[in-house]
């Protein structure tokens, strides 16, 4: 017996909720036990989300005993299917027909994990129901060490805390079909903005090759900073995360407790969300994306060059560490902090500009640009009038067959607020500023734009 513990009815429910939350991210979970705690960790497939639930031995369990064995002296770990665990730890209903049939009947749940040479590697859970029925489940597991994500606390200078219930109610106001959430703050108005949108495209019609935004709608909810318990965020900083992940976090946070705390640094760097309750600590590290990354992430065409796509999707740093729970690490190994692949060549490199809740006309970069070095801030010139001489290609239907590596679908998105901005017409002035991301405040005035369809070198 390596470790054994007992849960009461409520414990089983909490355990189940935690597993249900994890199931939204991945199919497998890594269970790690030590003398003083039990940890469940998982990573999603694209390695852009890391979840870690820690259960304190003496507070969460009715009984907890870690014995270890020759192989696992201080720390035991294994990997299990979440689905099997969920069915073991589900709530059970019972009661006489006549009494409230929603009365759950678990009296206690004893779990024992056994492993070692000559023994079957099994997690055995015995559930004693109040009515006398006893169920016993024996699950096999794989000996896999958990992967922990790194998060540098000192780097994450932006943070805020708010009641998860409030936040969850907020999310209800966003319609279906959204993918991304942009969180930004405005010091002047003392508001924190939550903007939801999707970059998914669809073909305009069966025959056309043009693509339009599936849902050309940005919804923004502004929350006063007073609603937050603590807000310290760089002004006008935009950070974008996946709505699906965020919702999953909130749904679970609401069950567990009140306060959700987040901390992050810059777009493209990980963001940490956490909340806790009696005996349970829940932590998530989500990858964030910068604005232009958002555009390219949501390619409809699955044939996008997978290498570029993977590189484009920022991944969390991972490290299999022995003996220390990284997320709670008191010492942050700055020297070891890897440089996350800077969101690379798939999109044009631009400095931050505020997300406008309007539509942009902006064809996609054509395939050659995938491998090319990022063009300089010509994207700044979000203009409909890109001087291309007589070959005004951008208005022709784009033929996907012409693309070389059959990767990217060109997209057109419609701007109903069309207004040519004179300052953008002078694109040539930008062409010469190769490699410098101008922090030009005039960027604020760019309300609509078109990003170039051609490489700079091909222009004029």
């Amino acid at each position, binding site marked *: 017996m390596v470790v054994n513990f007992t849960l009461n009815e409520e414990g089983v429910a909490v355990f189940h909720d935690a597993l249900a939350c994890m199931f939204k991210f991945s199919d497998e979970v890594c269970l790690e036990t030590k003398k003083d705690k039990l940890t469940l960790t998982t990573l999603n497939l694209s390695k852009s989300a890391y979840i870690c639930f820690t259960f304190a031995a003496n507070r969460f369990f009715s009984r907890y005993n870690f014995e270890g064995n020759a192989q696992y002296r201080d720390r035991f770990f294994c990997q299990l*299917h979440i*689905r*099997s665990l969920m*069915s073991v730890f589900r709530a*059970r*209903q*019972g009661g006489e*027909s006549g009494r409230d049939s929603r009365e759950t009947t678990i009296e206690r749940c004893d779990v024992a994990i056994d492993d070692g040479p000559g023994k079957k590697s*099994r997690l055995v859970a015995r559930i*004693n*129901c109040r*009515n*006398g*029925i*006893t*169920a*016993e*489940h*024996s*699950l*096999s597991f794989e000996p896999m060490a958990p992967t922990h994500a790194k998060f540098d606390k000192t780097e994450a200078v932006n943070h805020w805390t708010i009641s998860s219930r409030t936040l969850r109610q907020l999310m*209800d*106001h*966003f*319609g*279906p079909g959204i993918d991304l959430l942009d969180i930004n703050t405005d010091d002047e108005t003392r508001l924190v903005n939550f903007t939801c949108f999707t970059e998914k495209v669809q073909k305009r019609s069966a025959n056309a090759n043009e693509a339009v935004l599936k849902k050309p709608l940005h919804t923004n909810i502004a929350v006063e900073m007073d609603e937050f318990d603590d807000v310290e965020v760089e002004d006008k900083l935009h950070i974008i995360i996946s709505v699906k992940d965020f919702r999953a976090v909130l749904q679970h946070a609401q069950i567990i407790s009140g306060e959700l705390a987040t901390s992050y640094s810059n777009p493209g760097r990980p963001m940490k969300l956490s909340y806790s309750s009696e005996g349970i600590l829940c932590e998530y590290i989500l990858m964030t994306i910068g604005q232009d990354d958002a555009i390219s992430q949501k390619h409809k065409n699955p044939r996008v060059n997978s290498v570029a796509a993977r590189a484009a999707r920022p991944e969390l740093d991972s490290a299999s560490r022995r003996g220390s729970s990284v997320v709670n690490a008191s010492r942050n190994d700055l020297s070891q902090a890897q440089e996350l692949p800077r969101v690379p060549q798939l999109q044009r490199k631009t400095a931050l500009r505020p997300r406008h809740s309007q539509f942009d006309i902006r064809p996609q970069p054509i395939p050659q640009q995938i491998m090319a070095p990022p063009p300089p801030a010509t994207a700044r010139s979000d203009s409909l009038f890109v001087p291309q001489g007589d070959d005004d290609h951008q208005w022709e239907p784009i033929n996907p067959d012409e693309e070389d590596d059959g990767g990217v679908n060109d997209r057109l998105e419609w701007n109903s607020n069309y207004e040519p901005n004179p300052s953008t017409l002078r694109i040539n002035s930008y062409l010469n500023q190769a490699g410098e991301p101008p922090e030009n405040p005039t960027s604020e005035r760019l309300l609509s734009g078109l990003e170039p369809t051609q490489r700079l070198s091909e222009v004029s």
Partner: protein
Amino acid sequence: MASSASPVPAPPLFRAVASSTRPLYQLLKSIGFTNKVHVDITDNGLRFMADHARVMQGVAHWNKNLFTSYTTNLPQPEEEDEEDESATPTFQISLPALLETLQIFGAVDAATRQAKADIDPYRSNLRNYRPDAFSNQTLGMSGTCSLSHSQEGAPFSIVLEEAGVKTTCNLITYIAEEPELIPFDVNDLSFKIITQARWLLDALAEIGPTGPEKLTIAASRKAPYLKLSSVGALGSSSVDFAKGRDLLETFAVRDARWVQSFKFDIIKSAMEAMRIASKVSMRGDRQGVLSMQFMVEVEGAGLSFLDFRFVPYAERDDDEEEEEEDDGDEREGEEL
């Protein structure tokens, strides 16, 4: 105009009218594991028998109490019974088709609701369009349902009238093959356990998720009394009543132990019956055949019964291979 001397049409062999199709549908659905079902019309009601590969059989009874009117004009058996024992009309019809017809009530409501929901792609999450608990389809009423079978070879006719819409369905009847009932020896029982159907359902729901192929049922005089266990791809599970002896209202085990293994899927087919029944009587005979009889309480119509029989995997220990279907005598299982 000359009146042709058309003979007065003979009264139909069977005719019944029901105001609610829900219990009819539920009882039939619980044996819905085959395509063709054997129908017997008797003075007391209809009897439907479904067979699966001869290792599982389920019988559902539609007691005449379920109908507002029930008339039969069955041919009386001759004094000397030289022909078949049962003069009752018997035929086969398609079970899925019959189940579909019983669902017709309220189908119009569902279509309208779906059409409304499709129009609005921007609907917010706040307004959840939940299915209506009080729709006609859910309740299965608000109209009348007439069943009839005029004569041998005629189709089985179902006429549904609801809100001015009259739907007539004629289901083709097939000549019945001689049904070979799974032999179950009531006089040689090894055990008999009566308990609430929900405990059995819970036990199977406990075991189901591991995806097992075989289910082993063991009844023993001493603890754990009744135990269901299985081994699946993701692990093994077992449920026992060691501490729940009092849940077993009737408990009689003749020998020390009765253990048999069944294909999990066939036991699983009876879960629908477990869901609607209040009590179940489990009996095993010496041959290893398992009988489950479910008692369903239908509001305002008394009790209806569902009978299942399961043939276990053949034992391969020693050198004997027990044939489970060797019994020549067929005896029908009596009711409780």
